[in-house]
Structure formats: structure tokens, C-alpha cells
């Protein structure tokens, strides 16, 4: 993310329908975990940028936090403020369910983003990235590339291990590998940050003298992983990224690193959340669909980006 002007407006989408015409004023509260890594930072930025597109939307952004207790009180504050809608990316979906329900009961439209509540009544609509799917996509890519050759060594650098989403990604990856008789030989967890990626990778590369495939859950920590790979000058394997940052897409495009592909995990989820919140409050529908009502759940796909299709995705990629 060197280019400071590479701002997130590239992530703002228009539906070129009368839906974008301004309507009744909408106050939306937004709360997300601490932006302690690139993707989460991008999420917030995209949401803010999206809201700026509409002159009828006022967005209240609460302090990003990893303390559920604090995030709950932020939602409580939104309820006190009687906002029209809340776009909520919970630090922990289950933990935020109760308060989200309270908001719904108070007649506020709650949009659940990325980390799912454990009750259908807690949100009007849920926008999800497909974490399990991410793992599957990465695993399938490996299988296809390995062309059935067995005995390939596969390594994995996960994100924050204590998050459910990390568990899902790893599960998807393992399941997909199983299909072609491969398994994860070495696994380390980082913290989604460049530094932690570098640390974890340096140790991993020692632990595994020879690797054929390496999946790294997050492209921001991936910058560190690549640095570590360079420090250890290793290049005998193919690396797959995750989330799909602009840096990584450029690397894939230029094709001069071990990084050959990345699995997109949309950083526009919150932005979409804002869009939907506005539509719902204004009683509009998603005119792109024949369905009149905004659907209850959107699961965004987790496509694999390679040299061949990078150009189609690079413009919507986030600057980590």
C-alpha cells in the first residue's frame, strides 16, 4: 500500500439504478473489530467511502475494538441514539448476538457482516465472506496444480488462531486437500500482521526444509511471509495468498515471486452492508434481483486469482 492516493474509492460500487438516487435520510451506526491488520483497515475504509457516496446517509463509526464488552456497549450506544440501521462486523459473532437482537427488537435494521450471529433473529441481513470456501478454493488450486501427484509437501500459515474464521479456513483447506490425497505437513499461525507473518514464516521454513505448496491465509501478513522467504532465499514452492490485496495482485501480475495465486476474501463486505442497510431503511429492493425483498443472506464467493484473471480483480483489490 505505498501509493497513499490509492484510496478505497476503487472499492466503491455503483448499481447504476434509481437505487442510487438520494432518498430519505438514513443514520447508520458502524462497528468493527480493531483495525489491527490491513484487511480490517480496508473493511472500515471501504464502508466509510461507500457511505460518502450517498448524501442521504450519515455514518457513525465506533472505535474499532477486540473487546466484546466494549463493542456491545457501542451497539447499546447506537440503540440509545436511535440510529436507523447498524452495520456490525462482530469481533465474535456469538458474543454479539444478544445485543444485536436487542437492537432488532428496538426496531433497528441490523446488518451482520463477515462473522455470523448464532440467531437468525439478530440480523435482518447477513453479508458473509466464505471462510470455509476460501480454504476449499486454496486447497483445490493446490490439487489441480499438483495434478494428482502424491507426496507433495504442503505448508500453511494461518491467521490469528483463536478466531473461528481461521479454524474454518484451515478446515476447508484440509478437506479440499484430502480429496487429492494431500495433507498439511506444517502449519504455523501468525497474527494477520506483516511482522508476525515474517516471524512465523522464518520458523516454518526452518521446520520444513522442502515445501511444494504454501498457503498463507492473509495477504497483509503475506508481505512479511514473502520477506521471510526472500531472507531464506527459498523458491522451490508455489505460494497461494488470501484476501486479495493490491500488492499481491501486482506480484501475481508481474509473476516474479513464488506467489502465483491468491484467494479473494472481499474487503467490500461492510461497504455492501452499508448499501443494503440504506436500501432496507428506505424500503427499496435490490433492483438487480427479480426478488422484491433484500435477501436474508449474501455469501460472497471466494474466487482464486491467478496471472490469467488478475486484471479483472486488481481494480477492486484493497490497498493493505
Amino acid at each position, binding site marked *: 500500500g505505498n501509493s497513499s492516493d490509492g484510496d478505497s474509492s476503487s472499492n466503491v460500487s455503483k448499481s447504476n439504478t434509481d437505487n442510487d438516487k438520494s432518498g430519505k435520510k438514513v443514520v447508520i451506526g458502524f462497528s468493527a473489530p480493531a483495525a489491527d491488520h490491513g484487511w480490517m483497515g480496508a473493511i472500515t475504509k471501504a464502508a466509510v467511502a461507500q457511505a460518502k457516496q450517498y448524501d442521504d446517509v450519515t455514518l457513525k463509526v465506533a*472505535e474499532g475494538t*477486540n473487546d466484546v464488552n466494549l463493542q456491545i456497549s457501542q451497539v447499546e*450506544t447506537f440503540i440509545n441514539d436511535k440510529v436507523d440501521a447498524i452495520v456490525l462486523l462482530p469481533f465474535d459473532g*456469538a*458474543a454479539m448476538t*444478544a445485543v444485536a437482537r436487542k437492537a432488532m427488537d428496538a426496531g433497528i435494521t441490523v446488518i451482520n457482516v463477515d462473522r455470523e450471529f448464532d440467531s437468525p433473529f439478530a440480523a435482518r441481513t447477513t453479508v458473509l465472506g466464505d471462510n470455509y470456501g476460501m480454504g476449499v478454493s486454496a486447497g483445490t488450486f493446490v490439487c489441480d496444480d499438483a495434478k494428482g501427484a502424491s507426496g507433495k509437501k504442503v505448508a500453511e500459515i494461518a491467521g490469528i*488462531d483463536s478466531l473461528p474464521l481461521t479454524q474454518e479456513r484451515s478446515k476447508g483447506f484440509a478437506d479440499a486437500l484430502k480429496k487429492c490425497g494431500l495433507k498439511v505437513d506444517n502449519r504455523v499461525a501468525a497474527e494477520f500482521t506483516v511482522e508476525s507473518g515474517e516471524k512465523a514464516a522464518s520458523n516454518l521454513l526452518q521446520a520444513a526444509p522442502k515445501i511444494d505448496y504454501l498457503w498463507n491465509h492473509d495477504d497483509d501478513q503475506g508481505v512479511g511471509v514473502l520477506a521471510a522467504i526472500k531472507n531464506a532465499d527459498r523458491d522451490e514452492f508455489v505460494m497461494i495468498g488470501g484476501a486479495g490485496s493490491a500488492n499481491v495482485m501486482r506480484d501475481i501480475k508481474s509473476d516474479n515471486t513464488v506467489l502465483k495465486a491468491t484467494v479473494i476474501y472481499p474487503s467490500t463486505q461492510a461497504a455492501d452492508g452499508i448499501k443494503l442497510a440504506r436500501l432496507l431503511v428506505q424500503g427499496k429492493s435490490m433492483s438487480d434481483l427479480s426478488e422484491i425483498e433484500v435477501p436474508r443472506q449474501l455469501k460472497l464467493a471466494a474466487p482464486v486469482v491467478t496471472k490469467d484473471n488478475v486484471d479483472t480483480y486488481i481494480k477492486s483489490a484493497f490497498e493493505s
Partner: protein
Amino acid sequence: MSASLQNDPSLTTPAPARGDRSGNLGIARNLGLVIALIVLCIVGVITAGDRFASTDNMLTILRLAAVIGVVSIGMTFVITGGGIDLSVGAIVALASIWATTTGTQAMADDFGWIAMVFSAVLVGTACGVINGVLIAYGKVVPFIATLAMLASARGLAEIIADRKTQIIRNQGFTDFFGAEPLGIPVIVIIFALVTLAGWFLLNRTTFGRRTFAVGGNPEAARLAGIKVQRHTVYLYALLGSTCGIAAVMLMSRTTTGSSTHGTLYELDAIAAVVIGGTLLSGGRGTVVGTLFGVLIFTTLTNVFTLNNLSTSAQAVAKGVIIVIAVLLQQRIANRKT
């Protein structure tokens, strides 16, 4: 003299409240905090008007303060006793997990939700005892002993929960702690009770007196016939049990137990205690001060949220405000003496 603040505070700082009783000094000490809090509230009203001043918002602040508040009260004892505990957050996590395992919840279905409360407090106390024994008898530096507990407890919590968030099914539990008799949330009531009990224990009982002595001059306490080591264990056990209570409160708030609960509580709690006027070097502590410390921090966050500042800006502002508050307090206390 930084050093002196660590070793021999009274050389630079005006003697802070030894107990909350000790006459004008005590007031002078807390006066700074009171003013800081009032200023904060004024800012809140100016910037957010009724959105800040509303009863709902006040209750929101108190609810937020309750959990970390209970931990901070316990922390006040340990720090006054000359120790420190970095493992509080991890203990909260472990307790919340332990109290929400399928096993415990099954028990709760038979014996009522009290079983969950019981096991949470029990686990918390147990961890505290381990800390205390390592420190008092094993002579491990508190910082290291509790750092080790921090790592172990969280790790254990993750293993037990298999990193899954454990949802509480027991309706009785959520109903009881979710209730709001006379419009006051139960967890706020718990916070109030714990604070009162803490104040009484520290300022009106021999236990409290021993705590001051042990923190102020352990050797003198020992020669005066106080069982310093045993008392140290009690102090950490006490903190552990407050962590257990905090875990229960957090469980009721989130309707879950999770290995990620209580992240960074150690910093928040210690900060609240120290800003309250308790000395990290031990021998002086004030429960009332801690209460103010907690309220100041939570109100700060609340005011920020109401004015939706960007997260980064909030961080910067927070830092600056803390320093200003403390400097202000210094001046006032100095004037008073």
C-alpha cells in the same frame, strides 16, 4: 524523578490517600479525579447533548464499566500489597470457558445456573491461588509468575473450548443477570456491591491493614508477626475470585464463554488502579480512586463513540487526555498540601 515514583513515591508525589479515610489528603487526591470526570462529562454534554446526558447512556457507561471495574477492585488489593497481576484477562477467559462447557451447562440444568457462577468463581480463585503460591512461596517475581499464568490460562482456555465460542443455553442464567430491577442492570448492582465490599475490606478490617503493611514494608510486617507469605496468597486469590465474578458478568453480557474474553484487561485494570492513585510500589491504595479511574476510562470511550472520532484519532486523544488528567491531578494535590 521517575525512579522515585517507582521506589519512594512520597519524595516526589504528595502523599496520596493512604486509605480513603485519611483526611484532606484523601479528598485532595480524589478531587483531581472528580474534576477530571466532571470535565469529561461537560465535554460529553457539549459535544453530544442529551445523547450523552440521557439515563440510557449513563447506564450504558456503567454496564461497560462493571466488568473491568470488578477486576480493578481486586487488582487494587494486589497492587496495594506490593504485587502485580498480568493474568487477569486470561483468568477471565478461562473461567468463562470453564463455566460454559457442555459439562458445566449440563450441571446447570440439574442444579440451576448457580452451578455456572460457582465454577467460574472457583476456577478464578484457583488460578489466583496458584499465582499467589508461586510468588509468596516460590519467590517468583510477580510479573513473571503472572505472565506465565497469562500464557497458560489462555492456552488452556483455547484447548478446552477448541477455540469455539461457547453459547450459554441456560435461560435462568441469562434471565437473572439480564434483569434490571428498578431499571438498574444486575451487573451494575454487582459492581456496586463489589466496590462497597472492597472499600470496607481495605479500610475497615485487619485484612486491609495487613495489606497496607505487607505492601509498605514486608520485612517490618513480618517482624510485627504478620504472616506475609500467606497474606500474599490471599491477595492473589481475592483478585482471582473477582476475575471469576467478572467472567460471570461478561458471560451474561455476551451470552457466551470464549477464550478471547478479557483481552488486555490486565492493562486496563492496572491503568485504572494506578490513575486512581494506588502506588505500583505498594503500601498505598484507594478503592474509591480505582472506581473513578474505571469511570474516567469508560466515559472517555463513550464520549468518543458518541462523537464518532476515527479509531486512530481516538487513540491519540486518549493518550493526550490521560496525561493532561494526571498532570492536572498532580497540581491540585500539590496545591492542597
